[in-house]
């Protein structure tokens, strides 16, 4: 039931793009920090006001809770995340609460770009940016790809020769 008929229709044999396992760690950290800030903003003033627990303990609690929430969220995010390279474009499924499936037709991709941060380089992974001439979805990022696959994809997505197209 969760696998939509319509999308399977759009999809071809190309299938799922792999997600590097290290991406979960990066998502855990980024979502963890995002959770930490509101927790700090609530717990520390409460600790100061009511003297219920010492401030360092409140700080530690916020950090630990933030990381726990972040880890939970990152696991959900990774479980629901999927990027597919189809015959005629790229389909990205992402989001935990607000979910979106984005289809970027290959014919509309203006240019592609492979980006590597310091952590990416360490783990030999990369993110692939797709640029379209659109407005809202002018720049779409596929994170956590193995570097080799990202580079292959960068070239194939732009190669419009008929034999590659299958057209």
């Amino acid at each position, binding site marked *: 039931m969760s696998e939509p008929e*319509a999308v399977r229709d759009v999809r071809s044999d190309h299938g799922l793009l792999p997600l590097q396992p290290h991406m979960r760690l990066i998502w855990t950290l980024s979502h963890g920090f995002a959770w930490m800030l509101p927790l700090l903003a609530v717990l520390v003033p409460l600790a100061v006001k009511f003297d219920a627990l010492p401030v360092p303990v409140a700080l530690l609690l916020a950090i630990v809770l933030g990381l726990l929430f972040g880890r939970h969220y990152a696991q959900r995010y990774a479980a629901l995340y999927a990027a597919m390279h189809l015959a005629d474009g790229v389909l990205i499924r992402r989001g935990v609460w607000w979910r979106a499936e984005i289809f970027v037709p290959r014919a509309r991709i203006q240019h592609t770009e492979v980006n590597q941060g310091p952590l990416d380089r360490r783990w030999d992974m990369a993110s692939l940016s797709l640029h379209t001439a659109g407005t809202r979805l002018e720049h779409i990022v596929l994170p956590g790809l193995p570097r080799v696959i990202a580079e292959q994809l960068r070239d194939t997505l732009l190669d419009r020769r008929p034999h590659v197209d299958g057209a």
Partner: protein
Amino acid sequence: MAPDPRGDERRLHPFSWLFVLITQLRDVALPLIVLLLFGRGEWWEFMALVGAVLLAAYSLVYSFGFRYRIGDGELTVREGLFDRTERHIPFARIQNIARRSNLLHRVFGVTELRLESGGGLKPEAVMKVLRVADADALVALLRARQAASVPMEGSGADARTSGEVLLRLPLVELVRFGLISNRGMVVVAGAFAAFWQFNPTQPRSMMRVPTHWIEQLFGEVAAHHYSLTTMLTGGAFVLLLLFAALRLLSVLLALFVHHDFTLERDGDRLGAGGGLLTHAHGSARIDRLQMLHVDESLLHRLFTRMSLKTEVAGGVRAVNDQSGKLHWLAPIASPPQVDDLLARILAAPSLAALPWRPLHPRAWRRRARWPSVFWLVAAAVTTFWVGAPGLLLLLGLPWSVVSARGWVGFTRYAMDARFLAYREGWLSRRYALIELDKLQAVTLKQSPFDRRSGMASVQIDSMAADPLRGGIDIPYLPVAEARALFAVLARRCARPG
């Protein structure tokens, strides 16, 4: 016809430097004025003066150095002061031609010409300024060459039949447009904000005058001990007067901006423009048009009118319609006129004839939910503070339901072989229409609320979409239908048109 500029290099109008200077000055005017007014000591004033002189010299040399030449299949532009650049612009690349002339331009009998290509934020060439006859000749030549070098689908013969007028707005329509648009309000709000911001040393001194008037007025009123009804009638009268003044201002603005507005089709190009003092004219190839927007506010409906706007690919966000971008196709037109324009420009079916499909049958509940929660909370809080009268806010509940039902009753989407259309609203309505070939990406979205009620929304992305306007984002669809639509749109936009 004006002298044929073919072959030889041509210069701009001898007074071009003046217009370049004015543009340059406009960019630095504010800092200059601030320096002159608030700068302590002569040093700053001296620097400002030096800057102004340098700018003037720059404008002079720049505009005398500007050359253009019409060659075979391309326009060559040479410009620049220290780094001379020579640009070759193939005729086929010039997508949009925009013209602009303000009062000063008219005094000198010149106009500004902007040639834009499909992509990029900067125009390919800005000719500031040309004699009107030269500009006409250049535009005619460009069109003729374009038609010759790019064989258009079935429009080769059309390209010479210049200017089929699709719409011309008479004065009465402009007055209606002014009454509907209420731009006066925006101007007054802007003026008020500027008023407030002015004079950094004494921020509110400017406000003392109107405040003083109001105090005086209220003093008078209080001194006379008028009855409540008199005061209410007086207040209503004053409000009515203000309202009338704002509408009058809007009408005047409409006359200034859109005087003699004309929409013309010239082969495969569309041109539109008007204006009393500043005459802005934009043109674009019809296949560059992206999403079309039809607005029908409550006031529009009162006058049985609509407005039709377009988004054009290329040179998007950096310029607005005042600089001569094709934006308005019809500031105001009757519904049959809008249908006629859609048919003549895009060969689109009339708005009513599109195969409209409704949203999920329970969409109105979703639409009414949050406003209802708001009214309940507002009523609870107000009742807590002021007692029983707070319960009046509960009237918001039926209002939310009625407006939600009305909204869902009108909101629809439609897709045929060539177009995707969406309409939404209740009292005020809008339509958006795009050719399927112009879709850039498709998104299927589900919020937690969507998932609970078995709904989803489908959103499309297009070129040059105005971020401040709603595009096509079809909400509250049954999941299966949304998925089917998503799949069809995905397949359709994957196939280059």
